[in-house]
């Protein structure tokens, strides 16, 4: 639903009425009932990618303490697993794109891999800030539990990490200013062109997986910004939903207020995200 909220925000801000909030679900429903076209070049990896694209964010969601207390399945150092799961999903997607032998999808795959590799340090550095602030090595420990993140003492560092995570979200969810989810002009798009040859049910899974990915990072961001360990269960979940919606609105605002970067500028944006997070880590080390 989050891409829908972002799209709606964008529409409202630009003075249009926009598609209904639930448009993505309608699209998914329509796609699942359709047949699919497979390129003669493709192999099993092309068919595996949509499944991996759904399973990896789902399992990563299991690592986050969504109710503010416990994760479904956390362990020490599971932030490494969080990043590696998303990387696994991306790896299969990039391979599936190269599987078609099309130059368009090759282009998308190449850009996807490039930006993913540049965004990785920012993600890990944000985790470092969280670990330093909380003293814990699992996402459950960092974001959940009754011990709230020390927003008093470590506020600047945490704010920098949160900003960096927001940049990561924009990249991972293929939003502006890194990617343009609305365009179908091959030369400018990244994620859209990577999945160009997927159709029907496969495309539905990929779209849903991408939306989950956005929700995943939004939930991570909400976890950092609003510790909900002390709230009763329903209130914590309510706050989570409200937070997710806020993040989606923020994405929409960013999208309607700025243009896509030139491709050669995107690495600088991503390096800025890493620098921000590392400043946060340094601040935290000094304190």
């Amino acid at each position, binding site marked *: 639903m989050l891409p829908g909220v972002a799209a709606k925000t964008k529409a409202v801000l630009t003075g249009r009425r926009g598609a209904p909030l639930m448009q993505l679900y309608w699209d998914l429903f329509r796609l699942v*009932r359709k*047949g*699919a*076209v*497979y*390129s003669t*070049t493709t*192999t099993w*990896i092309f*068919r*595996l990618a949509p*499944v991996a694209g*759904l399973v990896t964010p789902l*399992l990563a969601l299991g690592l986050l303490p969504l109710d503010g207390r416990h994760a479904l399945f956390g*362990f*020490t*150092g*599971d932030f*490494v*697993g969080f*990043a*590696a*799961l998303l*990387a696994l999903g991306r*790896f299969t997607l990039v*391979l599936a*794109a*190269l*599987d*078609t*032998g*099309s130059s368009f999808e*090759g*282009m998308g*795959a*190449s850009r996807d*891999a*490039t930006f*993913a*590799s*540049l*965004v*990785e*340090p920012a*993600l*890990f*550095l944000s985790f470092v800030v969280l*670990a*330093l602030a909380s003293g814990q*090595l699992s996402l459950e420990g960092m974001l959940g539990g009754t011990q709230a993140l020390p927003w008093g003492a470590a506020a600047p560092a945490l704010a920098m990490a949160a900003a960096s995570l927001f940049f990561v979200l924009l990249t991972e969810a293929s939003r502006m200013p890194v990617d343009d989810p609305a365009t179908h002009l091959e030369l400018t798009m990244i994620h859209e062109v990577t999945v*160009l*040859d997927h159709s029907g*049910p496969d495309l539905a*899974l990929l779209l849903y997986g991408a939306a989950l990915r956005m929700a995943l990072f939004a939930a991570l961001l909400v976890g950092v910004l609003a510790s909900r360990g002390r709230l009763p269960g329903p209130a914590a979940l309510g706050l989570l939903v409200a937070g997710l919606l806020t993040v989606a609105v923020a994405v929409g605002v960013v999208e309607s207020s700025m243009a896509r970067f030139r*491709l*050669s500028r995107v690495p600088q944006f991503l390096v800025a995200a*890493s620098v921000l997070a*590392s400043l946060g*880590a340094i601040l935290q*080390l000094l304190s």
Partner: protein
Amino acid sequence: MNLCFWGLATIVAAAGCAAVLRSRPVLADRAYGLLVAVGCVVAAAPAVSVLAGGSAADIQIPIPAPSGPWVFGLDRLSAAFLLVVLGPGLASALYGLRALGGDGSRRGVATARALFAVELAALALVVLARAVVPFLVAWEAMAVLAYFLVTFDNERAEVRRAGWVYLVATHVGTLALIALFASWAGAGGGLTFDALASRAGSLPARGALVLCLALFGFGLKAGLVPLHFWLPDAHASAPTHVSALMSGVVIKMGIYGLIRVVSLLGAPPAWWGWLVLVSGVLSGVLGVLWALAQHDLKRLLAYHSVENIGIILIGLGTGALGAAYGVPLVAVLGFAGAVLHTMNHALFKSLLFLGAGATVHATGTRIMDRLGGLGRRMPFTWVSFLIGSVAIVGLPPLNGFVSEWVIYLGLLRGGTAGGSIRLVLLGVVGLAIIGGLALACFAKVCGVVFLGVPRSDAALHGHEVAGGMLGPMFGLAGACAFIGLAPGLAVGPALVVGASIARIPFPASGSEVFAGIVRLGLWSLVLVVLLALGAVAWAAVRRRRSLTRAETWGCGYALQNERMQYTASSFAAPLLAAYGRLAGVHETHAHGGRAFHSQARELVLDGAILPAWSAVRGVLARLRPLQHGRLWVYLLYVIAILLLLLLYLAQGASP
């Protein structure tokens, strides 16, 4: 321990077998394969029992030499590295049986087989030696035998050059090692490792000289940047199973040496830990960046060895810092991560080299931009190679992820401890950059070589390789999956080895690691099950829909061909551009912009060492006129020197 020697004797007997029976190749190959396999299993058995908690043992061979007794021993560290040698070594030897000489060309094959087996034995002796002289003898045997193995195709000029550079580099390294042990042993005292350990406290400056020489000498063998310059050429030019052994095992001896020195010296000074950590980050990032720029499949894999040595050194540096600053958990996690990643890299790197060798065998080219679409033609090789790729990128559910997890834990525990050790978090940045780049690099390799449409006739006519070559690959892939899915069985012993290197009992605060590893294993299983279930369920959904097969959608262009596909260089171009000149890509335009050529340069060898060497040669060339070749000139020299000596003596006598 005795069993180890029987195993090694069997491996050497296999070498004899290959050499003696060269007139009956079929029989010789069978006997060789059987003997090597039996030897490796027999020699590995005591190592496994030591790692499972058995007691270590030493044996002495009384040799009447001034160098003192030749002691050999099997402790936990040796046991771990013995497995590193024997597992991938066995797989490479069996693969070599089929790959080398399987096509009927027999010139030099018997000799190469024999040398390979002796090389395995020499490698095993390096990790078993417990005294300076047998260690250096085994080390030198390993280095020289590797030279002969690398230069198997010695009719090609670039192979001879690679072998020559390797030979020079390895001997410079050995020289540093001799200096190391000489400065450590001093004038008197024994030359056994125990004797060295007992003198560790009396070394000047806490062993600074020893540690620096170790980092140089062993680093040259391990291939850390900038001492890696010999490695890409040597690994790319060797026959494939030799490349697998070199990349998977031989360079690990450098790591073994470093760890052994640290464990003999005790906690190293902090500056050395920082030095190792920083050079690890440098090696890792530059190694993978240079790998990304390569067009040659085997050179690319060779650069990835530089990268993984970097990751191992990050672990080792973390361990050393933990020991230096007195944080036991960090020390154990760092050392354990280094040892485990050594094992893992040995497994997946030899797997990848064997897979690359299979594609070269099938198509006759190592240039990635001429391959493509091999996944359909070589399905088993493709799956093995994919497993190796997922493992080396450090993705779950395979072994690379497990060891990187251990190293990350060590780094983060260092970061949450107090004091200056917290700067160890630098390693996190390094590991994250390495991980992202490695993903891009292996997406490129897998995609360009195995997926898409064949880019040349050679790739079009590629075919699956014989079972004799697939078997070893399956074995290695199985080992990668096993460590990934049952990580407790590997991490547990690795932690014990780590504690034995740091010479401390396992800290009680480490129980979170054990709890974590169990859940990590479960989590990996869940991932596999979910992926499998999802794939099956989705296949069922698809079956109910109408499926059409058509050409790849070309956005309206009708005439697509294989040359329009993204190539290896175009895939990597945006990422390399982001790193600028550091990537070492050399681009040339010709014919008024109509032709474009890009080429990856080896920055250290071609950019620094060879120019420096030719400058030295230029200076020395000025001295050429001294060598006239005429007898009277030399007589003049002799007389002049004699006069000078007499003058000197006269001066000394006069006062």
